[in-house]
């Protein structure tokens, strides 16, 4: 039952605002995404530079960086996730309040980046937790991080309240808990979460 646009614009001219609950709900959630203060490595410095005066993340309602996962909606994984740090990252993601999103910032968070061949480096955080926006770059420029925020906001905008396009937190079947890996002898115990990570098919 989408609102037909022409009527909406006409009413808008008369000064009457028409909206649906879904638009209001999405507009409310996307306009103030509070990221979690979670800097791992070099990308964290670019993230801090983005929040500073010149690039100013506050224009997107995200300048409040909450240290505790309980009050954060977004986890920006900015830097290399090592195997020693991976259980903590997954536990923090589990402890965040439910409508939560993940931005994998930088090549290291996406696929291990330049340190991929290291014995202590996890080859990408999407092995354990679902990632919403990937930003390539090493480190990605502050503008790229702002573009990631805009992508995430567009993504939240397109979510429906019920039915097929529901976000994870409105969907009963969607898993709420992601298994925290254990420390094995040479590698993490489940090397990747079966539920969230499938081997990418390489199309030659």
């Amino acid at each position, binding site marked *: 039952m989408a609102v037909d646009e022409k009527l909406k614009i006409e009413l808008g001219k008369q000064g009457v605002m028409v909206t649906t609950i879904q638009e209001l709900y999405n507009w409310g959630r996307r306009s103030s995404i509070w990221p979690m203060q979670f800097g791992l490595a070099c990308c964290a410095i670019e993230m801090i530079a983005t929040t500073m005066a010149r690039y100013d993340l506050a224009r997107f309602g995200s300048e409040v960086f909450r240290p505790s996962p309980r009050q954060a909606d977004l986890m920006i994984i900015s830097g290399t996730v090592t195997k020693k740090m991976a259980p903590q990252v997954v536990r923090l993601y589990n402890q965040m309040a439910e409508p939560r999103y993940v931005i994998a910032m930088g090549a290291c968070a996406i696929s291990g980046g330049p340190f991929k061949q290291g014995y202590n480096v996890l080859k990408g955080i999407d092995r354990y937790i679902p990632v919403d926006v990937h930003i390539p770059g090493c480190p990605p420029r502050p503008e790229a991080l702002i573009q990631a925020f805009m992508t995430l906001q567009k993504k939240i905008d397109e979510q429906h309240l019920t039915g097929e396009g529901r976000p994870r937190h409105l969907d009963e079947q969607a898993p709420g808990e992601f298994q925290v890996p254990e420390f094995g002898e040479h590698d993490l115990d489940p090397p990747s979460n079966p539920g969230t990570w499938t*081997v990418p098919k390489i199309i030659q």
Partner: protein
Amino acid sequence: MKSVEEIKAAIETAVPGAAVTVIPNPAPNAQHSLLIGAQHGVAVAEFLRDNEELALDYLSNVTGVDYLDKEIPEKVKVTRQVSKTVDGVEQTVDEMVEETRKRVEPGYLEAVYHLFSVAKKHGPVIIRMRTANRTDQVELPSLTPVWRGAEFQEREIFDLFGIVFTGHPDLRRILMWDEFKDHPMRRDYVEPDDFEYEPTAHDEVLKRAQEHKAKVAAGEAVQ
């Protein structure tokens, strides 16, 4: 600043019985080093620190180096029974035969210490200590009681190379997690098999990727 030979002589007079040999450094910067016997390590270190002339009170860098076992082919004269027909009669006679035999020279782990002097402001004096072999005798005396700067670096060498420093106040793993087995920076450490996608793979990475693909095809690995 005294030359390496003078320091060697000074050490030998100050610490009798210390096995000190000069390891020349062919690079143009001529930073030659002194190989110190492991038994007198702490005594030599204390001498280097407390001697007024040297006053090496600042330990800058401790490095672990791993040298693998080396097979050295050798020409060996061996007398061997060779059956030869001497003027028609079949008999065995021993005869000098030259053959190459592989002599395995045991590898060793090495700790290299770079010492400087803050008081006298003079340059690096490099001392090295070597373990007997790479498997069971891997103890070296810890120099943390002499220079506290070595504390974390020796723990890192213990963690990544496996040299056990006796006398270290707090020898634990520092970089890897505690449940980690064996020492990852050694030359013969094999990483666990993992999904490998490298768009422009070359040499070891390519080899590892193909091994992984073979394993997946054979159904052992799950990815």
